[in-house]
């Protein structure tokens, strides 16, 4: 059995005559956290649509082994459901009623939301909402988690805390993650590998492997160098 959960080969995607992605290869294995960075509008969200099966490639092949869940930048929670009900929606459909109660309690514990279980999303802060999103997505016990700039709507401090929390949560419940961001600092802090995408049509410009410990401090060995390499690749330095 292969260790790959996502396997894109020569993938291209067009919106009409507009080439968004072209000739893109990407492999993601189990429990790996891959971060994709690229200039804004380079087709990062389209890439996630392809990985999640919401879009079909115009060219090439996109293989998925297992199920995916996607976390969006903002507003993916169902506002008419409480935190508890949102997480419940995320549990596998076959989960029995008693097991649901325990699992929801576990997720509320992991994401430190127990006292907000009966709040509605609009009563929570942006950071708390994203924690609920993460809990709902991970509660599905799917093989792959796709994250579309999940922290970009948050303030700087919350964003930093959320990165640490994401890594801690993934340590408890490991999963393959593809994390899309335009934030280079974020990419080098949390990624096992960083994929640098070029401008439209997007393809892989460079792949950087990063040291194993996560989340990394900006001063950790290799981090500044990786950041510089990405900046060079994107023509930002």
């Amino acid at each position: 059995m292969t260790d790959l959960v996502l396997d894109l080969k020569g993938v291209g995607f067009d919106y009409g005559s507009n080439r968004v992605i072209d000739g893109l290869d990407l492999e993601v294995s189990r429990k790996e956290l891959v971060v994709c960075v690229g200039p804004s509008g380079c087709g990062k969200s389209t890439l996630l649509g392809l990985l999640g099966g919401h879009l079909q490639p115009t060219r090439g092949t996109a293989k998925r082994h297992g199920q995916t869940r996607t976390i969006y930048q903002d507003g993916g929670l169902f506002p008419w459901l409480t935190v508890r009900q949102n997480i419940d929606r995320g549990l596998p459909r076959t989960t029995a009623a008693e097991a649901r109660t325990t699992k929801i309690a576990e997720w509320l514990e992991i994401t430190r939301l127990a006292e907000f279980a009966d709040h509605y999303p609009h009563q929570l802060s942006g950071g708390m909402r994203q924690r609920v999103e993460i809990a709902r997505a991970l509660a599905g016990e799917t093989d792959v988690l796709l994250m579309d700039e999940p922290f970009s709507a948050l303030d700087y401090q919350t964003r930093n805390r959320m990165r640490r929390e994401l890594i801690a949560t993934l340590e408890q419940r490991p999963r393959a993650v593809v994390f899309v961001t335009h934030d280079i600092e974020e990419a080098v802090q949390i990624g096992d590998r960083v994929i640098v995408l070029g401008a439209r049509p997007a393809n892989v410009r460079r792949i950087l492997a990063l040291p194993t410990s996560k989340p990394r401090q900006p001063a950790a060995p290799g981090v500044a160098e990786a950041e510089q390499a990405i900046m060079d690749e994107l023509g930002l330095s």
Partner: protein
Amino acid sequence: MAPSAGVFRYLLPLVTGLALLAIWWISTALDAFPVGTVPPPGDVAAAFVSELSSGRMVSDIVASLYRVAWGYVTAVIAAVPLGLIVGRSARAKAALLPWINFFRNLSPIAWIPFAIVWFGIGDPPAIFIIFLATFFQIALATAAAAGSVPKVYYRVAEDLALTNNEVLFKITLPAIMPQLVTALRVAIGVAWMVVVAAEMMGVGSGLGFLINDSRYALRMDLVVCGMIIIGVIGIVLDILFARLANVPSVRWGFDR
């Protein structure tokens, strides 16, 4: 000390009401209007008391509420599913939306001849008029709301492997509830407003009948009495429907 919010909310409307009443009373007491055109408040009050003690007022109110309830509830039951289909399907939208708009712009009064020819006399033609007055409005509001549900909910629903039926009832319907509640509130106002027109012909009871019948008898005091009751019940209905916005699973649409 600044006056409390309660003073503004309850005392000021009372003050303006009393001022209007005073203007009305003084102008009729001074015979400012030609005879028989504006009834004095005293006559209206007397008409109110006699209508109430004879029991006619209660039966008129019940008759009108009964017709409005039937017309309104059937319109909601029919219009919401239609609106959901029109809002979610491009084909249904292209086929039906222009016609819903066409009929929405027709005054329900224009249907009165058909209401009588098709439904005869009694409650059915009145219920039909009230149905028409609200059906197209609610269908249109539902369609507009269903068409503007954020796409992200449907993507999440795909990830959660919801069936088509589940998407309709667990995503689209709850997602449009705030807008639907507002549309229902507007529509009950329209339904109640139309009751006078709906009871213009073919019925022998109801607040609309009271007004029309009193007009022929030149009983302007009774006309005003009917107008006041309709206005007050309209406010009560609006307050009740406004409370729908406080339902927890709907509140999100009004709190952000």
